[in-house]
């Protein structure tokens, strides 16, 4: 039994979500990448938070659920930031091109 819990005004939340959607769609039309970033992704994060907190009732749920979601996102972050340097950086600045200067054999590499 979920028991009675306080309800947010769902329609009001929906209204603000739609407003945010409109802003995020219009943002890129200014064609400034920094603003697009904020309006598109920043707003996505805000919208996600509003849906999670209000529609999914995380705001009213026992804290363990919130903790589970936070942990999941944190681990996802670990994955992203752990992989990013490798996949994104193809130019290593510690590599020595010993083939070009014929020093491989000397260095026994």
């Amino acid at each position, binding site marked *: 039994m979920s028991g009675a819990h306080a309800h947010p005004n769902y329609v009001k939340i929906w209204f603000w979500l739609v407003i945010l959607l409109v802003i995020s769609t219009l943002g890129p039309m200014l064609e400034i990448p920094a603003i697009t970033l904020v309006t598109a992704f920043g707003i996505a994060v805000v919208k996600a938070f509003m849906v999670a907190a209000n529609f999914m009732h995380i705001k009213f749920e026992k804290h363990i659920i919130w903790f589970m979601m936070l*942990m*999941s996102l944190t681990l996802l972050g670990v994955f992203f930031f*752990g992989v990013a340097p*490798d996949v994104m950086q193809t130019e*290593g600045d*510690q590599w020595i091109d010993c083939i070009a200067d014929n020093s491989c054999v000397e260095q026994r590499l």
Partner: protein
Amino acid sequence: MSEAATAEQTENHAEHHEELSFLYKYILPVDHKMIAMQYMFTGLIMAVIGGFFSYVFRMQLAFPGESIPLFGIVGPGEYNMLVTNHGTIMIFWVAMPVLIAAFGNFLIPLMCGCDDMVFPRLNRLSYQIFLVSALVLILSFFVKGGGFGGAWTAYPPLSSVPEFSLTDWGASLWVLAVALEFVSFLLGGINFVTTAMNARAPGMKMMDIPIAVWFIVIAVILFMASVGPLIAGAVMLFMDQRIGTTFFLPSGGGDPLLWEHLFWFFGHPEVYVVLLPTMGIVADIITVFSRKKLFGYRTILYTAFATGGLSFVVWAHHQFVAGIDPRMANVFVVTTVLISIPIAEMMFSYIATLYGGSIEYTTPMLWALSFLVAFLIGGVTGIYLGASAVDVYFHDSYFVLAHFHYTFFPITIIGMFAAITFWFPKMFGRMMNETLGKIHFWGTFIPFNCIFLPLFFLGLAGQHRRIYNYNHFPDLATEELQDIRVFATTSLIIMLLFQVVFLYNFFYSMFKGEKAPDNPWKANTLEWTVPSPPPHGNFKTLPTVYRGAYEYSVPGREMDYWPQNMPPDEK
């Protein structure tokens, strides 16, 4: 829903159920104990297949080019298929189903004091999906081109381009089978975690839960968290294979290294997913047969959390020589060496439990003790590999192979036999034969060491993995090294022969063994308070728990054990 025991919660409705038909009792059960049996037997059958593959490829290594009895000639393609599927089967279709699904299913409701899993029909569905995954894998051996041969790590482009892997449909069926197995364990995992979190008997606080249950639950949480990116990767790999996308192909803008990361982000926590259940089972067995309280319950629990958390930040130690940024490698060296600490702590706690105890050398205890010995060697050799400078030499050599067999074999095989010999009386209502058990134990443990200890030296000599015939490498085709290979193979044959003893013991005892009492080992946990085997619904009246699971040899008590559900004033 309050925690207090209400009449409705303790009264067991199970007794009102009519007798089930054969179909609904054995083929389509919802009862967790029967589903556990299904997982266990499927896992054991897959173990036979995986073991057979290891026989074939070890014979090829010992007698290269000869026709192997029961198989035929092993060419490079066949060899690759054998080693790939041996690894894949042993991890996904033996270790996980037997240790996690079978024993998790059997033990969690019983040890938590409830009548079944929270979602019995989901439980049944999980097994059905698992069975399909096993059948898909077996199917992959029979399609044109044969089974997948790209190693269990399935690195693209070898695994994604049929022209390279030479196993067009085999590769795709392999990916499909693994993906289905993942889905099955995700569903099963949700069931396990929800049951352990919610359905515990009244009075059972978090710190009263037996370590076996805790560790299986933590393992399953680790699995659920780590498998997601790999499922994403498997979808991408499958599409690369069949549709021609280029997620992992540099020519199309993709990156093969991405697969490596996706795979190992899962692959490393996965080894702890299989390790933790065995460590939990060993903890319980050691306490029972030392007649002594488990040393440092909370410490062991916290180290398990630490291991779980750390396991997510060590994965790139599998990629030290893949061309990753050396600075990243340094980070992973530190975390890898760090993770040995909590596990060592667990081992110390187990040894401390043994110290001063009244040790009973039953078969399960022998298995549990041998786990500690063998895993110690495995773990220590892992530290060598964790140092990236050393790994530059050892990567892809037999040193790595010996390391992970000294960890995986204790986890899977020793853990499996420990659990089976310990809980057999509860599962089947009869005792296994102790003498046969001990013969089987020594006949497995000694040959195991004879197979894998020499392999460290092969690795030191520079023997690389996944080569079907070392005669092609003059440095490695010396007589000494070949003698070692023959010795290892001979030991394997001996070990496999001794498994007949186990099979005989297992099946004979199931039907003709001495009838087992409720609590033959005089243990504390709740599964020993019900008849052997437990009836449908497990408990006549669902129990209330008054203490932790490890109250052995409590001063002032006549009995040297104190069941969890015995009221405090009762003697």
